[in-house]
């Protein structure tokens, strides 16, 4: 029964993540459009775009290699495996024991490498520039993420996301300043990893300022559909990750029944919707920063995460 429940919740979680990915992108676009006084396309528009692109054959550059054909599949597969590890509406899913934060970071690095290789494959200027910038941003995002993980490791004693969520959900920790600082750091990393404003602009048409889209300039047809889907899934993954760690309320505990799942589903939907709204408001209120200001932005995140850990050192030292 326990195993069955774990497998069922895992399958449901993967299906939810897959469904939520285009929806989150569409929802954020729609919310931003409404806030800017436009009518905006329906939140379901990304589904239509993906369906159209997916049916089209891709056009590859003359000297593109097998990398261009394999990279989108690899990137999406790595992102999907990472997304299946991040806890969603329920705890104790089938992959819970493998849900390690460092592994999730590694899988996202694998997807990032596939994306950057794709950018360099055709030997075009924009692709190489985007790849170099994407990898450079990761140089600042990765330490901020891992030092945030240090705060969780101190409080929960592990980097397993399922256990972190379970420990934080018990509420024995209460509100902590250090967790707030870590949340800000994680949020900044999430913005950079997902190429959102102020690091990159997902809706840009000016090639010189873009990073993520620059690597996809040569992608078309079903390959472009896979890349778009991967970007949406990565965004959903990060929102779910932040929800799982910092907003662990309402998730169905391990081994619970369908009623708890329903409550968990509602809570998860509300959390994800709230995070989408917060992201839309933030993006609508802030301007994109220059590329070479990004290290300062992410460096501040790293400092906040270090401060969070240092606060914990001091407070656990007195405890």
């Amino acid at each position: 029964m326990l195993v069955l429940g774990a497998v069922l919740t895992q399958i449901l979680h993967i299906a939810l993540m897959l469904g939520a990915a285009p929806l989150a992108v569409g929802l954020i676009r729609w919310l931003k459009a409404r806030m800017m006084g436009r009518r905006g396309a329906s939140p379901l528009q990304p589904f239509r775009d993906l369906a159209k692109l997916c049916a089209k054959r891709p056009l590859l550059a003359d000297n593109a290699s097998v990398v261009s054909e394999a990279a989108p599949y690899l990137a999406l597969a790595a992102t999907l495996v990472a997304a299946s590890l991040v806890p969603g509406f329920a705890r104790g899913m089938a992959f819970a024991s493998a849900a390690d934060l460092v592994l999730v970071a590694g899988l996202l690095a694998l997807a990032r490498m596939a994306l950057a290789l794709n950018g360099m494959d055709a030997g075009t200027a924009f692709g190489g520039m985007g790849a170099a910038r994407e990898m450079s941003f990761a140089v600042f995002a990765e330490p901020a993420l891992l030092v945030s993980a240090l705060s969780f490791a101190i409080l929960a004693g592990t980097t397993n996301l399922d256990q972190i969520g379970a420990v934080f959900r018990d509420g024995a920790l209460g509100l902590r300043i250090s967790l707030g600082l870590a949340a800000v750091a994680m949020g900044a990393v999430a913005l950079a990893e997902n190429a959102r404003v102020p690091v990159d602009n997902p809706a840009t048409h000016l090639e010189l300022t873009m990073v993520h889209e620059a690597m996809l300039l040569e992608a078309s047809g079903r390959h472009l559909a896979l890349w778009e889907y991967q970007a949406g899934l990565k965004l959903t993954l990060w929102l779910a990750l932040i929800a799982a760690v910092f907003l662990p309320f309402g998730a169905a505990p391990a081994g619970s029944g369908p009623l708890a799942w329903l409550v968990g589903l509602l809570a998860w939907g509300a959390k994800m919707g709230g995070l989408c709204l917060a992201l839309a408001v933030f993006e609508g209120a802030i301007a994109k920063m220059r590329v070479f200001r990004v290290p300062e932005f992410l460096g501040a995140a790293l400092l906040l995460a270090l401060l969070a850990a240092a606060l914990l050192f001091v407070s656990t030292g007195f405890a």
Partner: protein
Amino acid sequence: MLTALALGLALLGLLAGVALVPAGRWAGPVVLGGSALLSAGFALLAIGALAIGLPEGVLVLPFGPAWAGMSLALDGLSAWFLLLLGLVGSSASVFALGGPRQGLVAWPLFLGGMGLALLGADGFTLLLGFELMSLASWALVALDHREAASREAARLYLVFAALAGACLVPAFGLLGALDFAAIRAAPPEGWRAVAVLALGLIGAGAKAGLVPLHLWLPLAHPAAPSPASALMSGVMTKLALYVLARLLLDLCGPVQPGWWGVPLLAAGAASALLGALRANLEEDAKVALACSTIENVGLVTMALGLALLFRGADLGPMAALAAGAALLHAMAHGLFKTLLFLVAGAVQHAAGSRRLDRLGGLIHAMPRTTLLALIGLGAAAALPPLSGFASEWLLLQALLGGWRLGEIGLQVAAAAALALAAMAVALAAAAMLRLFGLAFLGRPRSPRGAGAREANRFELAGMAVPAVLTLLIGLFPGLALALAAPGIRVLVGPAAMPPVVGLAVGAGEGHSAYAPLVVLLLLGLVLVLLWLVVRRRSPALAERGPAWNGGFIDPPPEFVFGDPLSQPSAAGMAQPLRRMLGGSLLAGREAVTMPPPGDTRPARLEAGFEDRAALALPVPAARLRDAIADQVERLRGLTLRGSLSLGFATLVGLLALLAWLEAR
């Protein structure tokens, strides 16, 4: 078993002798084939010893220094590094069979010196092997001595090797005995122990390329032929780390305080960051790989420092985790760096250059080499499920457990080290992408590169062995660590358990675990499903057309490889990191000279960097040498009476010293 190993060493010496005989065209195959077979034998014996049981006791040779015979022994630590030596030695020897026959005398001596250093069970034997290794590898670096740069690299290498020897000999001398068992029974204490720490760190650090003693490494490793570079980066730096671990963790023993780990942690973190950053800026493939070696040596040193810290704080499982990370990463790096250096050699052979700005598009001409390079690249960039990720996962978990040290200073140090290690890992990924993307993807950048051919079968075989091992260690890190368990016990105490959960690795009881096999299965399953779903909806094959490139117009027909300006260059790929980090850490500079309007001169962009840390020690040292030389020059101007009194005073002084020593 020890006899067999000693026999193997003797046979390697014999092979060096064979190379001296003018045996015509058979010398190469005999020497290199023999080296490959003997190295494979070493690897088999080492794996047997680790899996079945280590040989007891010590083999005392009937010759050696004046006071005793040389002694050989094999314990968990030396067997683990002997395994690495065997694996890398055999694949590099096979690879060398497919290239020009150079340095045939030095090659077996290099392998034998490393083997002797590993098997030595007393300070004399270890140092003898170590110095033999240094000299033989110097000969390999100086092989291309008609090139001024090569001569320069060899001279610098010799100076640093001499520095390493000059520090390690007194470090072993201060231990109070030569026989390892006797040292372990009475480890040094007080100021002597601190002196051993300082001398050992400088001596082994100079050989391993730890910052700030890394000046020689990016010059010397690429100057040697590629198989020798692979051996130097893959194994020789690990030997220096072996000496460091043997000296500080094993011989000085658990009586030493935990703060001994702090200098190792600091030097390791500095090396990891600086090496990885430089790997992003260098424009020569082999130099970039050598800089990445500095990074990985730094990561292993960090893990060793953490093991010392945890051992000093009585955190047994955490110490075992850190020691496991050190040993696994040493093995993983040894193999994937060998693979990458051999790939660089194959590329140089096929495309005529190792400058990234003359390569490009090799994936079309060398598909097999590209696949092997991709495996090495993935491991070096710490991507799951390859070997680099498994070992760096362990290291990051050990760093994430640094808060258990209790003391707030050490906790903050561990947190800072975690940030630097994470940054180094991400920098390594960026460097590997740049290396691979520029060399193998895109369009050719030179006519010679456009005419490249696939590597020959010896080269492919030599590259395939470390590639397969990289995959295997990545998928079964638990088995590798189980083999390393005797080595972990040597480092952190007889009760240590390796951080293993079945076939996976785990960060201790109730903590996180990483099961690469599960990750690979999931990835494979998702890939197949994705492929089926997408191709069902869109079954047509891809069309081909000119690159869109943001609407850039087609180049004129005389540009055979397209417009060179529309493809990223090595310096261009390095630009973001040079501006973001290089400015402060590597004195990076960038200046645009823009002629005034109406002037027909082209605008110029000057960019570059200077590794100040590398020059921080050698430049003052050279100044000191000149000052001393000036002073000594004055002696030549002494009068006859002055010279006589100086000689007399020296004689009296030495006699007084002798009398004082006799009286003690």
